[in-house]
């Protein structure tokens, strides 16, 4: 299935792109992140990230569906 990715901050810089569409067979975001981390050298272990699917926070175990927008959220540093 096709998954849309949007990157922010350090992940955006390391991925070298803001938006990406990937074709994947992973059923959840966990293994998808592991694969992307391997590809781009993201420094964050999954425990340090939150994930948002279709504009809201979601558990790592949420089943992926065709067309989902996935955002990996590095430790936030606002304020």
């Amino acid at each position: 299935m096709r998954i849309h990715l949007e990157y922010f901050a350090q992940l955006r810089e390391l991925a070298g792109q803001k938006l990406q569409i990937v074709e994947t067979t992973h059923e959840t975001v966990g293994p998808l992140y592991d694969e992307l981390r391997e590809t781009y050298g993201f420094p964050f272990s999954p425990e340090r990230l939150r994930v948002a699917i279709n504009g809201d926070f979601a558990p790592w175990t949420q089943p992926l569906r065709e067309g989902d927008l996935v955002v990996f959220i590095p430790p936030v540093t606002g304020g």
Partner: protein
Amino acid sequence: MASEPVSIETLRAALHLAQAGGFCSFEGWVRNTNEGRPVDGLDYEAYDALATKEGERILDEAMARYDISHAVAMHRTGSLNVGDVAVWIGVSAPHRDAAFRACRYIIDEIKHRVPVWKNERYLDGDTQWVACHHTHRPHEHEHDHGSCNHNH
């Protein structure tokens, strides 16, 4: 979420209700140093849609937890210089205790939950995504969102 400066008078206006006897505000300003390095300014990047949604949830929580009249929060995105207002929280309440507590709750939650990231520009020309807030949370609403492990 605001990509341009917002007038504090405008933000305050919504809070100025006749039953409110106390008003507490917090502003985060861009400091001239961080961990000893001279800072020139910083750039905030945000996941705007989710940041807005999470910010509204935090304000709703504050309204539910504390006896307050109204609460407003603003967070900047984009390029800021030393002294600029990065975040503004205002809370009005019948009594001051609730105003202080709610204001503190809101800024603490924003710093831990709202998807905003800070890229610091140093005077030596270097830039760096700030890795993690170095804050502990010694407050009544202490809980760990697990989003930030102190690794230095």
